[in-house]
């Protein structure tokens, strides 16, 4: 299959790359654009490790083809905080509350939480657990992730004008 040129905006910057139409979005991000922060966990849409934002909503980048992202605005874990700047409140909260161990699933969780806190700045535990149930973490038992989300909500509300 002949590669196609694909233009996307990722984390506010325009990227050009080429990929065969069958290439998944996550492979394109990782292999063509070199953004390896997004991880491949199951390639069938269950584990959520590859979760990114497309036009502000979460998508499973393993279930999308790169060509489907043409012209869209993507956000990945690398875009949460400036490289040399302070952590994003969600990243800060995950570290502070020990919401990660091996860290492999973490980028997917962070992006899921980013969307959650935009939808609901003060989510209940039930809401948090329900919204996180599409992301699998094998290390933490979720407890500290739930606490991290609450703390991230707190930090975000404090930072808001």
């Amino acid at each position, binding site marked *: 299959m002949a590669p196609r040129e694909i233009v996307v905006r990722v984390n506010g910057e325009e990227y050009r790359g080429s990929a*065969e139409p*069958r*290439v998944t979005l996550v*492979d394109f991000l*990782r*292999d063509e654009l*070199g*953004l*390896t*922060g*997004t*991880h*491949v*966990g*199951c*390639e*069938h849409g*269950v*584990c959520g*490790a590859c979760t990114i934002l497309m036009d502000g909503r979460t998508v499973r980048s393993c279930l999308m083809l790169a060509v489907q992202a043409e012209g869209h605005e993507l956000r*990945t*874990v*690398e875009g*949460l*905080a400036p*490289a040399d700047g302070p*952590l994003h409140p969600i*990243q800060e909260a*995950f*570290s*502070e509350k*020990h919401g*990660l*161990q*091996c*860290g*492999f*699933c*973490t*980028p997917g969780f*962070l992006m899921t939480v980013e969307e959650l806190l935009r939808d609901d700045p003060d989510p209940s535990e039930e809401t*948090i*657990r*329900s919204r*996180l*149930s*599409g*992301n*699998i*973490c*094998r*290390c*933490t*038992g*979720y*407890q*500290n*992730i*739930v606490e991290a989300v609450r703390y991230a909500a707190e930090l975000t509300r404090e930072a808001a004008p």
Partner: protein
Amino acid sequence: MSATAADTWVGQRLRRKEDARLVRGAGRFTADIRLPGTLHAAVLRSPFAHAEITRLDVAPALEAEGVVAVFTGADLAGRVGTFIEAAGKEITPALRAQVDVEVKSCPLPPIAHERVLWVGQPVAVVVARDRYAAEDGLEAIEAEYEPLDVVPDAESALRDGAPVLHEGLGGNVAARLAISSGDVDAAFAAAPFTLRERFTFARSAGNAMETRSVQAAWDEGRDELAVWITSPRPHLIRTNLSEMLGLPLERIRVVAPDMGGSFGTGLFGEDALIPFAAMALRRPVRWTEDRQEALLGTRHCRDQVHDLELAYDHDGRILALRDRFLVDAGAYNLYAVTVSYNTAAHIRGQYAIDTFSIEGLNVVTTKTPVAPVRGAGRPEAVFALDRALDLVAAERGLDPAEVRRRNLIPAEEMPRPMGMPYRDGQEMVYDSGDYPAQLEQALEAIDYDELRAEQARWRAEGRLVGVGISSYVEGSGFGPYEGAIVRLDQRGHLHVVTGAKPHGQGLETTLAQVCADEFGLPPERVSVTSGDTSQIQFGVGTFASRSAVTAGSAVGIAAGRLREKVLAVAGELLEASVDDLELVTDGVASRDVHERAVSFGEIHAAATPGPRSRLPAGLEPGLEVQYYFVPPTVTFASGTHVASVEVDAETGFVKLLRYVTVDDCGRMLNPMIVEGQIQGGVAHGIGSALFEGVLYDEDCQLLTGSYMDYLLPTSTEVPSIEVGHQEFLSDLNPFGIKGCGEGGAVSPPAAIANAVVDALKPLRINVNRVPLGPAALLDLIREAQAGAGGNEREELAS
């Protein structure tokens, strides 16, 4: 060793150093490493569980666009050896002298040749310009097989006439162990009561979220092989590659970068296939497993069947134990008796049972090989015994808590010899702890008496709420050793190297805490490298709840010795006695006159070889100390879990209401990390209890090949775990540490099964296998209701 006081870093809930990169997506996992000119591999896997390969034509694959090469078993035959077995090496002469143990050789080839023994076994490797093209190549390979009879489980493997899978074994038993103490037959004959029950623990799998990946590069000019690999044991991988590929050990560098979990160890065909391909093609080659391959082939675990017998008296005291169990090892028994010995050593748990006879067989079948995974033989043992203890309680009309009180080892008996050697050949001794107090602390935490009172009220309302107890011990900090190198640079920065490769345990943080304390410097001034064979000659790895104990001790001792050397060099420079000196943030100063000081830079220069070297007589140049800590034997951590559950008798769904743990892991280097390990372990154990089972059909075809079929617990199934601690320091290492990585996963199947049985007490169901999914539980409920004569609604509500 510095004492752990309030002003030390050890013991603090310090935020983890590794988080900084991981939360930014800047971690570097094996599949993130990019080498120019890399080719990509995909593996053709056997579609049959047992078959002769009658035809394997790779020519069409070589014609596929982008395919560079294809390798099969025929290409590797005579060129690449088999994996070194843990087998013979693990059975020390000391152990062999004390225990009836037999391990037969069953070496794993990296790729099938002429015959396949499980669905998913590698048959060919296609190397291409990218993974997509490599998979095209797989489809083009023409392979034909002549299916042979399968051996679906351990029991059928032992039947007369079962196909013998490895001729060298002379049958299908790959390993056997038998341990006993006291006159078991006499105890059973004399006992007023006995019970016999079969307990089955399903096959499951570790399911690290990062799938395995191997990347290899061959430097032709230097005859050097570099390998990046998802493995907690890079030094073992290097030794294997050295032997299998015939390369000098030091021409191989194996690096385990960031790892997305592990939960067990394993040796895999791809470990050698990818380096072989890189050497053959003189190009870097990368392979990353997809999840389908992981579920199929990344080592399964558990899969034990126990026939357990207990003899007990009127008071519910256990008089003797007899257990015969089978481990379905899959197609190759790669870990000798690691798991079965753990099972045998841990089945008596915290209970005073001194008359026992245990026999375990590792049996080969036509399924994916198993490996030690978090808990490694302990959850199976604890499930069997703690369920049986509840059967004793029911039989004698005792509360499950009371039957435990009567059987727990009293605190005054500690340290307590257990009448058998541990797997390392040393006498097995529970070194410290107070199990009765641990039980009471856990019961108090869940408010047991109140829960029992409420249970009666709920039952009257038709709510099926139950509570279950389980406890465990865990021999942790397994040897034989772990090492550390500690260095000080000219800026006063400390660097630690260890062979213990972590995969989520936060070792970069805890080892930095240990090292920082020795120097009185903040952990920010300590960096930690692990998982790189070029950095330290020997290494074991992170598994068996061992790294905090072994690497933590090695770092502490090495750092202490380096501190002594730094002070000695400073004493030479200041012409002062070492006793009059102390470490300060930027160097060493006189205790009395702080102006009399030398900087770390000056000390570093004085320790550098050459004309400016100013070392006290007898000291070698360098600010580096290497130390290998060899633990005398394991140290016993312990824990007690209490679960309360509510059962929905209509759906068979078990809801966890509360889950309480009390553990003793000795000195906690970082309680935040300890609690994280326990919470995660419990979640893993909840999976084993209620959700996770690897299922095969009668042809040994995998039925659970996706996450739609193999269910992992998610945030809506795992409750918040209420974690409490005891802290009985170990005498077996300088800091008093015991391991905590696995304990959390050990007791949940038993505690939850006991709670479910308790919730359904009016129906008198018996749970003797896990996982206990909704369908399985509904079957038990319906069976009991049918037996109860149809007035089940009243039964449940009564």
